[in-house]
């Protein structure tokens, strides 16, 4: 194969404008011209500084959550006993932050659409429908029936199964189409939602109250016994996602470019979507629906990261997610004593961010 390298080739005679400048700038060493994840050193420094600040904030918030209003002296046995109880909610927040943040960023990348969240594709409606059906059929005790690790895993499996069926049938085949897959997902989600809301109408007020508590994402919804399986699933899916970041970077360039570069686009997208569905399903089954939390975190991360490279975007998104969630809980819990509305506040802020993003000029 005649693969003469470019270096040995003479530059062509005629050139475009800006050529004089190019000649001045060109003779630099290859090392200083090396391409990286960041446009320049300043961007890299900015990223490092922001990541450091987030890490500090995360540690501070974790300590704050453990120690605030703790009646015992820091360091004593009693202090740690109380802290241990609160540590559970920190772990839950970390699980939710990691899974929602990574899932949303990866989902937006492979669907090439930055104004959508994976939660809207029927995961939450299915969760709501399962919960409502249980209460409808079994009354107040229905909520209890859904508790237990096997039930938790079954709910996750159902949600992942729905997602895989949807992606698998609509994205593969010669006429696979991303937008249609998204729309069908949303419509199916809406259908499940309206069935659930009809069943809710038939509930007695007391049954409804029991159910309502499960319908809004809340860290307190998480049962201790789910935490270990949730950690295992999230860690596994996140690790796989992080291992494939270089491929994800190529998938972000769109189908044609990805195929040209030798990446199997369809397989890459499907694999990513399955991981996304695992992450979202675990988060939803653990704490309940959180539609716009991931959207908020992803939108903030794109602004802050200053790079396209998912090796840097994903960790920052996860950390940012934790800071937002833990920060919101700390503020609402201890400043306003209004723990119950935390997730709803986050949803409102996320929803507002959504409005701002879509009203900014751009192309979709």
């Amino acid at each position, binding site marked *: 194969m005649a693969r003469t390298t470019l270096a040995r080739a003479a530059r062509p005679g005629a050139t475009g404008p800006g050529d004089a400048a190019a000649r001045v700038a060109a003779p630099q060493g290859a090392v200083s011209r090396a391409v990286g994840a960041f446009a320049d050193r300043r961007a890299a420094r900015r990223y490092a500084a922001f990541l450091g600040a987030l890490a500090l904030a995360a540690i501070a918030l974790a300590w704050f959550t453990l120690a605030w209003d703790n009646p015992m002296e820091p360091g004593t046995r009693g202090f740690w006993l109380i802290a241990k109880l609160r540590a559970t909610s920190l772990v839950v927040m970390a699980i939710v932050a990691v899974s929602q943040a990574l899932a949303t960023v990866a989902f937006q990348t492979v669907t090439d659409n930055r104004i959508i969240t994976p939660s809207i594709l029927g995961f939450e409606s299915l969760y709501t429908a399962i919960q409502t059906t249980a209460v409808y059929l079994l009354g107040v005790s229905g909520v209890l029936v859904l508790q237990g690790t096997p039930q938790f895993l079954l709910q996750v499996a159902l949600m992942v199964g729905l997602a895989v069926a949807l992606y698998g049938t609509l994205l593969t085949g010669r006429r696979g189409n991303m937008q249609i897959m998204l729309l069908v997902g949303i419509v199916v989600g809406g259908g499940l939602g309206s069935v659930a809301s009809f069943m809710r109408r038939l509930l007695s007020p007391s049954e409804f109250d029991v159910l309502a508590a499960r319908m809004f994402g809340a860290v307190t919804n998480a049962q201790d016994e789910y935490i270990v399986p949730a950690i295992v699933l999230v860690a596994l899916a996140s690790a796989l996602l992080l291992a494939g970041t270089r491929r994800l970077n190529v998938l972000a360039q769109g189908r044609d470019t990805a195929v040209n570069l030798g990446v199997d686009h369809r397989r890459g997208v499907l694999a990513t979507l399955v991981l996304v569905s695992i992450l979202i399903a675990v988060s939803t089954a653990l704490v309940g629906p959180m539609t716009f939390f991931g959207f908020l975190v992803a939108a903030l991360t794109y602004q802050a990261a200053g790079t396209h490279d998912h090796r840097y975007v994903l960790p920052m998104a996860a950390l940012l997610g934790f800071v937002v969630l833990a920060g919101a809980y700390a503020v609402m819990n201890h400043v306003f004593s209004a723990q119950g509305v935390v997730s709803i506040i986050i949803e409102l802020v996320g929803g507002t961010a959504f409005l701002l993003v879509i*009203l900014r000029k751009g192309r979709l």
Partner: protein
Amino acid sequence: MAGAADGREMFAITRVPRTIALVLAGAAMSMSGLVMQLITQNRFVEPTTTGTTEWAGLGLIAVMVLFPGASLMARMGAAIGAAFLGTLVFFAFLRQVRLRSSLIVPIIGMMLGAVVSSVSTFIALQFDALQILGVWFAGSFTSILKGQYEILWIVALVVVAVFIAADRFTVAGLGEEVATTVGVDYQKVVLLGTGLIAIATGVVTVVVGALPFLGLIVPNIVSLVRGDDLRSNLPWVCLLGIAIVTACDLLGRLIIMPFEVPVSLILGIVGAVVFVGLLLRQRARG
């Protein structure tokens, strides 16, 4: 029923109003969908896929919470105002972005709807009105009685207005430049269209409830069967809208007798199936 002594009276109080309400709501919502599709030049928009219904619900719940004793007219005014505002937000968004695919439009619209309804849910939760909210949003003709439905006649005016202004909406749909070239005031026509949609959606939401996907599936089915000639399609859109709402209402009454399934649930499921069918059809054509 007619044979019984009070049958005639019963008939006049419940059945006649219910039938008129079905006719008016069905025609108005399918016309709203048509107007939206004309203005946006997009086959997949209608009040439930653009957030308009959710905005109307938000206006409704805001008034109920702020002024618990508000009259029907006040509630309706709030619903119409919010629907108008929300539709303008959506149209503003459409003009801001360059779209790669027409299918993005309903995706954004339904995301927008989800945002708005999360706000409504928040308000409802704060004021313990969550279950009531659910009842409002589930459209049903069960509670339509004489003396309560007459306000629906407003939407008959909307239908007439659409018949008169339909050509202008088509021109506006071709874009501001084309509209100006042929001497149509783009801003005015869009505002008029938005106003008509908001009135129809607001009134129907308050009196009946949400009628999901009706405005989407009706114009699409009509143009599948009859082609895209707007003028001659208009009456068919009206009639088919009425027919579908009536059929869904009957189905809802018969399916688990003696209980009634709200028409919005039936429409939600039927509409979703037809919508998915339309999408897959588009997919099959590439």
